[in-house]
C-alpha cells in the first residue's frame, strides 16, 4: 500500500499514447522514445507489494509487484523502447499510438493481481494489437479480422472462466491453480489461445506477417509473452502443458522449415520458442520456472531483433520471400550481422542470451527425469537450425544474389535499435547473473560448465551438418503449408455456405408453397364470392321468391307430418 496508480508504468505508456496524438516532428520522436523509457524507470520504482481497491464489491489488486513482475515489466518496457526506436520513421500515428497502448496493456497484465483487472488489460491488448495488424495495409484486413475473432474468442473463454472461478471460490485474486473445475479449464484455454497453442496457433503466422515492417516488432513481443507470464502465475506444474508445449515446439520447426516468407518463418519460430516455455511451465519446478522467466526475457529481445531484421529487409527491398531474396549480406552488412546474433541467440549458442536461459528448462526436465520431455526438448533445441537459427540467415544473406538489388542497411534509428538488441543478446549471454538476479526463485544454476558448452555446440554443429547435407531439400518453394486455420477458413466457410444453401432452398420452398396455397384460396374465394360466384352474383327477385316459397312449403309439410 505504498505506491499509487499514478506511478504505474502502464499509465506512463498510456500518457505517451495520448501525447503522440498531439505532437509532430521532433516532439513526436521525443514522445516515442521518452515515454517507454519513463515506463522502464517506473518499473524499478514500483515497490514490492500490492495496491488494493474495491469495485462493485470485488477486492481488486490493480498492482501486485514482485520479482517476476519486475522482470517482465522491465523487459516489456525495454522492448517497447526498442520498438519505438526502430519505428521512429514510421508515419502511421494510429499504429504507434496503438503500440504504446498495447505495451501499456502488457504492463497492466504484468502488475494485475486479480483476474478482473487482468481481463481489462487483456482486452486492451487484444484491441490495440488488432489495430496494429490492420495498419499493415489493405492486405492485412482479412488477417486482422481473423486475429480479432480468435482473440475475442479467447477473451470470452477467459471471462467465462473468471466468472466461474469467482462464483465458485469467491476470490478474484490470481493464485496458483489446478485445472480441477470447468471454470479453471476455461481460464487455461483462454490463456492458451494467446500463447499460440493448438488448435488456434495459426493466428500467429496469419496475422503477424500481415502487419507493417514495424508493427510486427510490437506484436512479436507482448501477446504470447504475457500469456506465458500468466500461465506461470496461475498454472505452474500442470502436466498437460508439457505436451502442449512440445507439440507447439515441433510444429513451429516443421512449418518454419517449409516456409518461404521470412516473416511467416519467424512467426513459426515464435510458436516453436513459446512451446519450449509452455513445456517449462508444465514442468513447474523452481528451476523450470526460472528457465521460463529467463527464456521469456531473452526471447523478447532476440525475437524482436530477428523481426527487426525481417522488417528491415521488407522496408529496404519490398520483398519477404526467400525464393526472391538471397545474398543480401553485401548490401546490408549490419542487418546481416544483427541477424547472425539473433540466430545464434535463438539457437541458444554459448555466449548468447538463449544459451543461459533455454538450458535451464532442459536441465529442469532432466532433473525431474522426464525422459520423453527431455528428449524432445533436446531435439527441438537442435531443430532451431531449421528456422531462424541457420536456415533464415543462410538463405537470406549468404546465398548467391538472385538479382542485383540496389539496397542498403535501413535508416539510422532502425540500425541503432537492431544494434542495441544485438548487444543485449550478447551481454546477457556473457554476464547471465544480471538476468539471474531478477528471476523469481533463487538460482543455483551454472550455465557455463565445460559439459554444457560442449553438449550445446555438438548438438548445433551436427544439426547444422545435416542441414548442409540436405540443403537441396530445404530450398525455399513458393506456396503455403495448410494449417489448422483451414478448419475455419475453408471447412467452416463450406459448412456455412452449405447451411446457407439449405436454409435458402428451404425458405424458397416454404414461400412458394405458401404462395401456391394463398393463390388457391384466392381462386376458391373468387369462385364462390367473386362477381360471377354463386354467393357473390346478383340473383333475380323471382328466383328468391321461388326459393322462399319452396322452403316455406317444405317447412309446412314437415310440420304437418310431425
Amino acid at each position, binding site marked *: 500500500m505504498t505506491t499509487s496508480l499514478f506511478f504505474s508504468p502502464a499509465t506512463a505508456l498510456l500518457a505517451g499514447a495520448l501525447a503522440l496524438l498531439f505532437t509532430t516532428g521532433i516532439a513526436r520522436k521525443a514522445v516515442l522514445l521518452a515515454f517507454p523509457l519513463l515506463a522502464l524507470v517506473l518499473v524499478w520504482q514500483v515497490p514490492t507489494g500490492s495496491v488494493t481497491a474495491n469495485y462493485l464489491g470485488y477486492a481488486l489488486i490493480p498492482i501486485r509487484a514482485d520479482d517476476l513482475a519486475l522482470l517482465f515489466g522491465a523487459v516489456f518496457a525495454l522492448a517497447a523502447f526498442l520498438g519505438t526506436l526502430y519505428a521512429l520513421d514510421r508515419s502511421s500515428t494510429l499504429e504507434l499510438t496503438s503500440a504504446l497502448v498495447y505495451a501499456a496493456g502488457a504492463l497492466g497484465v504484468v502488475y494485475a493481481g486479480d483476474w478482473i483487472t487482468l481481463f481489462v488489460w487483456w482486452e486492451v491488448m487484444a484491441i490495440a494489437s488488432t489495430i496494429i495488424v490492420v495498419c499493415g495495409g489493405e492486405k492485412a484486413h482479412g488477417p486482422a479480422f481473423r486475429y480479432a475473432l480468435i482473440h475475442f474468442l479467447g477473451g470470452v473463454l477467459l471471462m467465462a472462466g473468471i466468472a466461474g472461478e469467482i462464483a465458485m471460490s469467491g476470490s478474484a485474486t490470481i493464485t496458483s491453480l489446478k485445472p480441477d473445475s470447468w471454470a479453471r479449464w476455461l481460464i487455461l484455454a483462454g490463456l492458451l489461445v494467446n500463447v499460440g497453442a493448438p488448435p488456434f496457433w495459426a493466428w500467429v503466422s496469419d496475422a503477424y506477417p500481415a502487419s507493417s515492417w514495424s508493427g510486427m516488432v510490437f506484436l512479436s513481443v507482448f501477446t504470447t509473452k504475457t500469456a506465458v507470464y500468466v500461465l506461470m502465475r496461475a498454472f505452474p506444474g500442470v502436466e498437460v502443458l508439457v505436451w502442449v508445449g512440445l507439440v507447439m515446439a515441433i510444429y513451429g520447426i516443421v512449418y518454419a522449415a517449409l516456409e518461404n516468407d521470412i516473416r511467416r518463418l519467424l512467426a513459426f519460430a515464435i510458436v516453436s520458442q513459446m512451446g519450449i516455455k509452455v513445456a517449462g511451465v508444465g514442468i513447474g519446478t523452481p528451476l523450470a520456472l526460472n528457465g521460463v522467466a529467463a527464456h521469456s526475457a531473452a526471447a523478447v529481445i532476440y525475437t524482436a531483433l530477428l523481426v527487426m531484421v525481417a522488417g528491415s529487409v521488407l522496408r529496404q527491398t519490398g520483398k519477404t520471400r526467400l525464393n526472391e531474396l538471397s545474398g543480401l549480406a553485401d548490401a546490408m552488412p549490419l542487418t546481416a550481422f544483427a541477424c547472425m546474433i539473433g540466430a545464434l541467440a535463438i539457437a541458444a549458442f554459448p555466449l548468447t542470451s538463449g544459451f543461459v536461459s533455454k538450458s535451464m528448462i532442459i536441465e529442469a526436465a532432466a532433473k525431474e527425469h522426464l525422459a520423453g520431455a527431455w528428449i524432445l526438448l533436446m531435439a527441438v533445441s537442435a531443430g532451431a537450425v531449421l528456422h531462424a537459427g541457420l536456415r533464415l540467415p543462410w538463405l537470406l544473406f549468404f546465398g548467391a544474389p538472385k538479382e*542485383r538489388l540496389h539496397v542498403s542497411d535501413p535508416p539510422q534509428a532502425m540500425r541503432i535499435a537492431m544494434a542495441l538488441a544485438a548487444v543485449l543478446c550478447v551481454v546477457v549471454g556473457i554476464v547471465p547473473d544480471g538476468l539471474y538476479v531478477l528471476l523469481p526463485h533463487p538460482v543455483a544454476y551454472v550455465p557455463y560448465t565445460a559439459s554444457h558448452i560442449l553438449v550445446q555446440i555438438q548438438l548445433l*554443429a551436427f*544439426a547444422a551438418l545435416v542441414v548442409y547435407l540436405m540443403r537441396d531439400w530445404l530450398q525455399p518453394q*513458393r506456396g503455403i503449408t495448410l494449417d489448422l486455420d483451414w478448419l475455419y477458413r475453408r471447412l467452416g466457410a463450406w459448412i456455412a455456405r452449405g447451411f446457407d444453401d439449405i436454409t435458402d432452398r428451404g425458405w424458397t420452398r416454404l414461400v412458394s408453397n405458401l404462395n401456391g396455397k394463398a393463390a388457391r384460396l384466392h381462386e376458391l374465394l373468387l369462385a364462390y364470392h367473386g362477381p360471377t360466384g354463386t354467393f357473390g352474383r346478383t340473383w333475380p327477385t323471382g328466383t328468391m321468391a321461388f326459393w322462399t316459397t319452396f322452403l316455406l312449403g317444405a317447412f309446412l309439410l314437415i310440420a304437418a307430418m310431425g
Partner: protein
Amino acid sequence: MRDTRKTSPTLMKTLAGKDLRKLGLLVLAVLVLLDLAVAHHGYFGIDGTFGFAAWFGALSCFALILLALAVGSILRAPEGTYDD
C-alpha cells in the same frame, strides 16, 4: 536483372570451398573428440556417453527434416489458396 558482379565472391561460395569444407569436418571431429576430455554427468545414462550430443543433434535434425518433408508433401498449397 541478374547479378554481374562475378569478381565479388559471396560468403556462401567461400563456405562451399573445399578447404573450408575440410576445416568444417575437422572442427566437427575435434568437437566429438573433446568428449574424451570433458566429463558429462548425464541424468539418463545415455546422455553421458561419448559423442551423444553429436549423433543426437544430427539424428533429431534429420528426423525433423523428414517430418517437415512429409508434412510438406501432404499440406503444401499454392499461395493464393485462400484468396477467393
